[in-house]
């Protein structure tokens, strides 16, 4: 060795491995408009499909007359339920164990429902033909309120379920009832609450919103009748699941189906489900023998593909006089729309909502969730959160605030008093989860110190006094949140989708010259997998991240996996990547030992090489080893250097965070300004701090949108009121505040590299932080609960109802 020999620090830096803010390798193409999205795909002879959609929320379809449409030059076919029925494809199974109409079968149940599928030579002819399809409707009474849907005389929505007193998740007690799902000990909870010194009770509504990815949903289906192979390019967050479902539905053997997710322009849960557009495109391609493209427009996307939330959460929380929480009871009325198309692990029809004890050591709790049909679009997906976790976090973080009011206590102090202590991990919650690790007090104290919490409260008190003296018309809100996420679904023993266990996978192939390709069962939609998974591998196998290609999304090449949603990619596929990397390293160790003419046990790993113990000048780098693996005939060792790992996680991971939002509110106009937003995230081991920061910025901005304006609302006859971006709030740079990010690092004890996942934390924690800031501004004037979204009108209404407009 000499002065030119790289130091260990140099060698580590060259890898750009764990902990490096490596620039996103994807961005070179995205920032130059060179991405390849579904709508960029053009195939020879490709046809286009589009839907005739229902203008009514509930109506009988008396007839569909497509004669005029079919007569239009360029129109190839118009599919209706009658055409799909012989194939048994007029209905399809949902991920939640229900079934959904592919095309209206006798009636429509929500505005925007698919009625007929027009296939034409180009997109323009499609649009003209849709106008020519004559559908005769007979309007039926509409129910958009889940409470009214459960009344005895409510209209019967799902006539196909007549007489069925049980569904996929147990008994149905009413014709519009889907399931009642319960967990926890209700009797003990009621007892604890009845015996408590203080009880707070509140109805917390988390309104219906929509993930609204920039790229809408779509696909190109291509049936090659010569070789019998079906290829489907689509906006799929779970391409392997789509392949299996397509095989089960169509009867085409799975090896003859290739599903490809190309670049995806955001998913946020919207692209997990299976939609009628996919089924119709595939059928149309099989019928015509030509590729068929279907792409939603923005209105289709907002009105018809999966919404999120719509949870009415009735809570009771009890405590001692000095603020020790003694029990939590929650009943949810869950509006699932016309079909139960939630995307949850099969055994969890309310997702992981029972994480709703949050960050707190609550001795006894109960959750009951009633799923209800209404004349609204189906969905109920996890919009940038793990399954129903943001609903849970919003619920508990509102209940804590309401309890603080009831106790007359500071809400930060109340949280601190009830946090699960560091020494209690692994912690078994009253609702059955085993929290893997956490250090809530440290994070909380750091957050409060960073924002000078005591100073903020003093300023707020002065502001209230000045307001009462008539010197200002602005109030100051301090929104607190300490959230606990549950991500990384999940252990196959209790997590599956339609029977498919929720493991994930990674397959690595090292090339002879010391570069590599790794393929995973996940699919990036903007998360930067090609960047971060290469970093995990770089640290595990000692090859530079820049020499590692990450490939996802093609079921012909990628190993089977359950896809990307619920912050599961790093916890599950990231773990598979590390484990596969370790298999590579294990074989590399044998090769290195042979090359160095020592026993396997006499070499040890050192950043990017194996060295002979006690003789660091004798080593073989991974690059040397890769070459030898292919080109030296090593006795007893197969040529090549490849590995595959299918990882079934032993537990979920539990990221957490402490957020503080400081908001100025104009009492007269209902407008707000976020003066400060501090976000501390603990996602365990940090793979790429820059990408984490970007994820937090994005998630917080979606949280801002949800809390402050975004909604999918319906009028009394079921018209969707927010079907364009004029009325559906998608923040621009102007509406987006500055965020300050921070972190603590509490690794997951069961994950190979200790990482927990972060993409969804800021949405889970952000929504209650923004909403609590609004509530907190009015706490001094008696506000307990006001439903989101906190748009100008609703904030104005709070002030008005509190008598602040004089």
């Amino acid at each position, binding site marked *: 060795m000499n002065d030119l020999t790289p130091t260990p620090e140099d060698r580590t830096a060259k890898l750009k491995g764990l902990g490096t803010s490596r620039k996103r390798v994807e961005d070179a193409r995205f920032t130059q408009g060179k991405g390849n999205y579904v709508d960029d795909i053009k195939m020879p002879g490709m046809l286009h499909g589009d839907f005739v959609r229902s203008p009514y929320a509930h109506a009988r379809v008396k007839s569909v007359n497509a004669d005029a449409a079919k007569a239009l030059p360029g129109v190839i076919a118009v599919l209706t339920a009658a055409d799909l029925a012989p194939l048994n494809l007029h209905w399809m199974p949902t991920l939640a164990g229900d079934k959904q109409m592919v095309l209206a079968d006798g009636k429509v149940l929500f505005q925007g429902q698919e009625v007929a599928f027009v296939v034409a030579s180009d*997109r*323009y002819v499609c*649009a*003209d033909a849709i*106008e020519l399809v004559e559908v005769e409707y007979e309007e039926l009474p509409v129910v958009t309120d889940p409470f009214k849907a459960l009344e005895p005389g409510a209209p019967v929505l799902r006539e196909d379920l007549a007489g069925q007193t049980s569904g996929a998740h147990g008994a149905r007690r009413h014709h519009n009832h889907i399931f009642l799902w319960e967990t926890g000990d209700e009797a003990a909870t009621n007892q604890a609450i009845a015996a408590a010194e203080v009880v707070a009770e509140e109805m917390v509504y988390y309104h219906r919103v929509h993930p609204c990815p920039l790229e809408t949903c779509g696909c190109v289906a291509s049936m090659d009748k010569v070789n019998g192979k079906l290829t489907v390019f689509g906006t799929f967050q779970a391409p392997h699941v789509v392949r299996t479902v397509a095989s089960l539905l169509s009867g085409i053997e799975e090896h003859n189906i290739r599903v490809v997710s190309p670049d995806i322009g955001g998913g946020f849960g919207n692209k997990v489900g299976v939609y009628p557009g996919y089924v119709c495109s595939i059928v149309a391609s099989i019928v015509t023998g030509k590729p068929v493209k279907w792409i939603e*427009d*923005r*209105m289709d996307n907002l009105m018809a593909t999966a919404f999120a939330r719509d949870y009415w959460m009735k809570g009771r929380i009890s405590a001692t006089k000095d603020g020790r929480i003694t029990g939590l009871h929650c009943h949810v009325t869950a509006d699932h729309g016309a079909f139960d198309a939630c995307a949850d692990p099969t055994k969890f029809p309310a997702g992981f909502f029972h994480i709703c004890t949050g960050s707190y050591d609550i001795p006894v709790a109960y959750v009951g969730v009633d799923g209800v049909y209404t004349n609204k679009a189906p969905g109920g997906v996890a919009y940038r959160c793990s399954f129903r976790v943001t609903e849970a976090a919003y619920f508990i973080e509102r209940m804590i605030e309401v309890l603080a009011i009831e106790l007359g206590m500071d809400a930060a102090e109340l949280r601190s008093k009830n946090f699960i202590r560091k020494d209690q991990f692994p912690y078994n919650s009253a609702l059955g989860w085993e929290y893997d690790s956490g250090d809530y007090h440290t994070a909380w104290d750091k957050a409060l110190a960073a924002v000078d919490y005591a100073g903020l409260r003093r300023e707020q008190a002065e502001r209230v006094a000045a307001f009462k003296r008539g010197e200002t018309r602005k109030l100051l809100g301090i929104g607190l949140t300490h959230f606990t996420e549950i991500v990384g679904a999940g252990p196959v023993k209790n997590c599956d989708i339609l029977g498919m266990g929720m493991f994930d996978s990674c397959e690595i192939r090292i090339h002879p010259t010391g570069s590599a390709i790794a393929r995973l069962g996940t699919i990036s939609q903007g998360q930067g997998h090609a960047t971060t998974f290469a970093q995990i591998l770089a640290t595990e196998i000692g090859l530079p991240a820049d020499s590692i290609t990450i490939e996802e999304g093609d079921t012909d090449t990628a190993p089977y996996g359950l896809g990307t949603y619920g912050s599961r990619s790093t916890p599950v596929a990231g773990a598979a990547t590390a484990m596969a990397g370790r298999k590579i390293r294990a074989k590399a160790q044998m090769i290195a030992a042979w090359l160095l003419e020592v026993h396997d046990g006499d070499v040890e790993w050192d950043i990017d090489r194996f060295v002979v113990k006690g003789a660091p000048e004798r080593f073989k780098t991974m690059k040397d080893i890769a070459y030898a693996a292919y080109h030296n005939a090593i006795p007893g060792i197969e040529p090549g250097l490849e590995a595959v790992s299918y990882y079934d996680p032993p537990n979920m991971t539990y990221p957490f965070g402490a957020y503080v939002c400081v908001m100025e509110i104009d009492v*007269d*106009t*209902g*407008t707000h300004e976020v003066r400060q937003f501090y976000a501390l995230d603990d996602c365990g081991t940090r793979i790429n701090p820059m990408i984490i920061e970007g994820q937090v910025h994005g998630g917080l901005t979606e949280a801002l949108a949800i809390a402050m*304006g975004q909604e999918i*609302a319906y009028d009394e006859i079921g018209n969707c*009121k*927010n079907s364009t*971006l*004029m*009325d559906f*709030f998608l*923040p*621009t740079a*102007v*509406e987006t505040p500055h965020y300050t990010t921070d972190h603590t690092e509490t690794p997951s004890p069961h994950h190979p590299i200790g990482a927990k996942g972060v993409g969804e934390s800021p949405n889970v924690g952000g929504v209650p932080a923004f909403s609590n800031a609004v509530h907190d501004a009015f706490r001094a004037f008696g506000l307990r609960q006001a439903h989101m979204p906190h*748009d*100008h*009108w609703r904030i*104005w*209404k709070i002030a*008005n109802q509190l008598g602040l*407009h004089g």
Partner: protein
Amino acid sequence: MIAAAFEYHRPADLKGALGVLAEYGDDARVLAGGHSLIPMMKLRMASIDHLVDLQDIAELKGISVAGGRVTIGAMTTQHEMITNADLSRAAPIIAEAAVQIADPQVRYMGTVGGNVANGDPGNDMPGLMQCLDATFTLAGPDGTREVAARDFYHSAYVTARDDGEILTQISFATPNGGYAYEKQKRKIGDYATAACAVQVTKTGGKVTAAAIAMTNLADTPVFSDAAGAALVGTAGDAAAVKAAVTAALAAINPTGDNRGPAEFKRHIAGIIIGRAITRALSRA
């Protein structure tokens, strides 16, 4: 979201454009920036057989400030108005209002003529032009005529312009004194929940003239003579502002929509009008 087929005309001069309108009558519409018409066509709420694009007509463009009068060609974009130094000196309220229209991309395309001629109560320029007491020039098959902005709007999308006419230019006397355009909206790209344009002059501590007009608070822009009159002769004190707001509110008729119900809008209008008057007075 794809428009039905249409014939596209792109005349090089005003005469040619008027000729197309004369030939096709009701079936033809002129296209300026397209930010109202094109979405309507894509939604198939407007069916236009003949679209007459005005962008090649040089005589419809340009801004002139001369002889105490400002003249703006109908095809002048909002971006051009915002960046025109002469206009900003002569009538700074124009840029103040125009930067509150939608977003930069829209303002590069959107024109003042399209904004005032369409009759959309959500548009910002009609109220502003009423405040400035602007005159619109309409060219038709029989020549041109002039209509005051304050007389132009009959109801939503219904104006004094005949189908065969094209709004060619807007002119107004160079305003004096203080000004303000105040607007509350939900987000960038939104129409106003309430907006108000104010021009006010003061001499010797007394208000000598005041013009107040409002946007999106009725099915047309609302010019309130009474609101201006309530300020004239006063010192512009709080009581006078309050009286002007009260007078202005008597003239509006907001309707509920996704921004909120009518009572909310009425309250916001009061706040916004008050702020606009106060800011204008502070600049007078």
